[in-house]
């Protein structure tokens, strides 16, 4: 397996961790212990905290699933990008917003950086938070857009 194939496999493996039935005991041989996970509304520092975040998301969104869109992976030796859809059902309070039991469907994208050993060292995420917040009634639009 060359480096690009390994990066592809690692990115797919990462998204599979969000599924409820996935084993979260992922080893430090494919994700760096000091990994930085950067969202627009949160910055998670280190593997332990990333694992905690995934566990929390899995409890908030029932049947949570990330699906990489058709050919939505772009790969280089030390970086990769993925465009994806997130689906689930919000069954627990999230960011102060009470459970709606609404099914959610949100698009997003992630930029992965890899170290020389092929481990993920940084993930930056762009998610359609406006759509998500609209779907779980977290915001009011003040204009017709």
């Amino acid at each position, binding site marked *: 397996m060359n480096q690009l194939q390994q990066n592809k496999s690692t990115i797919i493996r990462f998204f599979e961790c969000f599924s409820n039935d996935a084993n979260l005991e992922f080893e430090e041989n494919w994700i760096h212990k000091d990994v930085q996970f950067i969202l627009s509304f949160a910055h998670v520092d280190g593997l332990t905290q990333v694992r905690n975040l995934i566990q929390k998301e899995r409890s908030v969104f029932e049947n949570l699933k990330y699906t990489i869109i058709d050919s939505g992976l*772009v790969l280089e030796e030390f970086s990769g990008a993925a465009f994806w859809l997130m689906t689930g059902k919000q069954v627990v309070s999230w960011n102060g917003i009470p459970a709606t039991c609404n099914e959610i469907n949100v*698009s*997003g994208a992630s930029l992965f950086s890899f170290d020389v050993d092929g481990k993920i060292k940084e993930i930056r995420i762009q998610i359609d938070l406006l759509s998500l917040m609209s779907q779980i009634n977290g*915001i009011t639009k003040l*204009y017709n857009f």
Partner: protein
Amino acid sequence: MNRIEKNTETVRQFLEVVWSSGDLKLAEEILAPDLQFILAFAHLDGRDAFMELVVKNRTIFENLTYAVAAGDIVAEEMKAAAFWQMSAKHIGTWRNVPASDKNVGIFGMSFFRFNEEGKINEIRVQNDVMSLMNQIGGIKKLYDF
């Protein structure tokens, strides 16, 4: 310059020259006539429609600037992705939200497909519209998040 290096440069020019300078001549050189420009809230069909958007947005957002860091473009032979930062001053009505005269800034990611000639024929944008709407007063948060 090989195909991947050329695609990387094309993406950089698209963000930093076409958007930031409004260089429509360059847009004609690097964009295919049948370009599909896909946002979460709009789908523009054709290069001409996209160029109209560039002109329009540059009147609504003063000093509209897109910046991309050197390592934040990932490219293959037929596709690419970029993580970018946009900054501007909101001086005109955008999506029915009146001018706020606020300096705004958001991050986003774009996914690019290229045709056989090396021109961009599809762009999918994932940007932080939630943050932008919050900065210009287009939404009200219903919870403390």
